[in-house]
């Protein structure tokens, strides 16, 4: 335990590195593109356009405010997907660093999640604009948003720890996860309403898929003006914390071997 707190202290001392790694990610990502950071805003809009066309126009549905409904599902999903996929390369892709310099290895998956968080927050500007444009009333419930985001992040950090270390030892994790993410996308209520499923299925989905709970909660507070049920929120939090603990435990167990395996 003393070891553990000491390690957390070390993580804190290296906070500057997280900041710089995130900055590196973002700068490198946009430096060579003409539109630069505008892509953060364009991308969700274009995605929304495509999905609205397919699921709103071609295949009619009766969800009101469908583009917003979709965007509230899509943005958190993108955050999840890019964090999971990005984290898998975070250790293996930085082998040159890991083999040459010591620093707490956790910082790599952490910074992957954070740089995707920055992208998410920028994309939220689009969402905010949409919310205003579609005249969804502003409500004090929006204060729940950071709370849900925090739970979401805890969950993502857990996944990032897990998959970043798994990918070091089994390089086809990445290939497998591409398919898994696709399945996960369809099993998450992004372009459909979870209440449209049969009661049994929706219950099962909430239990088996934390993303379903998280996206539903985002929608409740941002779109439907209803406060999330406390027990529901706590259950999601408990799941996320459990994922984080398992992920971190696994990561710490594997981390000493990274220097030899990457």
């Amino acid at each position, binding site marked *: 335990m003393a070891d553990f707190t000491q390690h957390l202290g070390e993580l804190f*001392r*290296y906070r*500057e*590195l997280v*900041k*710089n*790694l995130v*900055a*590196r990610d973002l*700068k*490198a990502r946009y*430096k*060579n593109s003409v539109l630069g950071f505008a892509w953060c805003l364009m991308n969700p809009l274009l995605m929304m356009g495509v999905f609205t066309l397919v699921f709103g126009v071609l295949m009619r549905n009766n969800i009101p405010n469908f583009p917003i409904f979709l965007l509230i599902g899509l943005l958190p999903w993108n955050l999840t997907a890019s964090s999971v996929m990005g984290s898998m390369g975070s250790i293996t892709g930085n082998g*040159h*660093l*890991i*083999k*040459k*310099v*010591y*620093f707490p290895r956790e910082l790599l998956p952490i910074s992957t999640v954070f740089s995707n968080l920055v992208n998410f927050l920028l994309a939220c500007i689009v969402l905010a604009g949409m919310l205003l444009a579609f005249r969804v009333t502003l409500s004090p419930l929006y204060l729940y948003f950071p709370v849900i985001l925090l739970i979401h992040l805890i969950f993502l950090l857990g996944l990032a720890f897990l998959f970043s270390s798994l990918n070091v*030892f*089994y*390089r*086809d*994790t990445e290939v*497998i996860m591409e398919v898994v993410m696709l399945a996960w996308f369809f099993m998450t209520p992004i372009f459909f309403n979870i209440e449209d499923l049969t009661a049994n299925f929706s219950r099962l989905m909430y239990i088996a898929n934390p993303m379903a709970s998280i996206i539903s909660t985002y929608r409740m507070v941002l779109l439907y003006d209803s406060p999330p049920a406390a027990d529901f929120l706590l259950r999601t939090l408990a799941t996320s914390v459990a994922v984080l603990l398992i992920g971190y435990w696994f990561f710490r167990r594997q981390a*000493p071997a990274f*220097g*030899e*395996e990457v």
Partner: protein
Amino acid sequence: MVIFDGVSKRFILRHERSRSFQEAFVNIWNRRNRSREEFWALKDVSFNVEKGGSIGLIGENGSGKSTALKLITRIIDPTRGKVRVQGKIAALLELGAGFHPDLTGRENIFLNGSILGMTRREMTERFPDIVEFAELEAFIDTPIKHYSSGMYARLGFSVAISVEPDILVIDEVLAVGDEAFQRKCLDKIREIKDAGKTIILVSHSLQMVKDLCAEAVWLNGGVVRAQGDSVKVVDQYLEWANRKNKVRLEGVHSKAQEERQEDYRRWGTREVEISRVEFLDGEGRPTTVFDTGDTMVVRLHYWARQRVERPVFGVAIHRIDNVHINGPNTKTSEYDIEFVEGEGAVDYVVPFLPLLEGTYQFSAAIYDYSCIHPYDHHDRLYTFNVQPKTMKERYGFLHIPCQWRIETKAPVTPRGDPVGRPSFQVRRE
């Protein structure tokens, strides 16, 4: 302070590990074929370096030196035993590890600084010094993908050194950058050492180990062969390495080398080697006996098994009692050799041999342009003699052309009188 206490490090050889689920799955059925191939890079290694001490790790390639460095810098963990390190470490393992090509020099300084564990405030404070030391003021806002490799290395060194370490770990990195900068780096390292910091050096340049380190540890096959005073350990190592070489060479050309095998000193990586050393007089006739004032030509025959860029040929003359007389090379003489390939010879021409009577030992060497990496070094392998034939001067070993002059109130007779008043003017050339 660095303590190695019974440290062992095992590596599982890479091709044995299941790198994918697919292999892992197959291996469940093939358990028998899964022999674990182990490799112990270090076996029960113990040594310690006091605060302010300096230690050099020497040994052949694959002897475990780099593994030891990685253990010190916490890049890997020991399998057994304990590595204790007290103080902040700066590692010059690979300069500019973690630089991102798309970012500017400035951005990379901050990124790399934080990788080395510095806070933003420390970085801001040291930033001007870093830039100045790297001599990159003009390019600091240029993406470093446009940097030359020398600029890259300079920046890397400057950032690494700016950590203000208690312990400086150096792994053969100084063979980069131009020569002026290399000297600057070495000066900086000496400065850090003189400030009472701990230095740990891994190098193939044994001279550097002797110069920089008070102590040395000789690793061989992951085991400590010898440790202690660096000069002694380096000599032991050299003797061992040369004896090993001798055995290898005997198979190649046994007769020619026979007479030198008693005290065989030779090392280097042999991309290009010195195949023969010939002593010639002014007319090109082979001889090993010269008179003071003679022309001496030493022909260094080389054989480059591959194209070697910008080699530096050097020689040295020692008196038989190991007094080092000179050691010129083509670089200090500003005689640049663009490259060598295949066979050839380089002549070291002394138009007027200033040595007096005696036996002298001759060394020949080929180094890379930094003069750090030896291709082939023949240390005092050759002997030549100087005998007095015409030269009358006898004391010491060096003839320095001179004139004598006398000033006196008494009238000077043109011919010297050896008994009474010395009145001569001598000119020897």
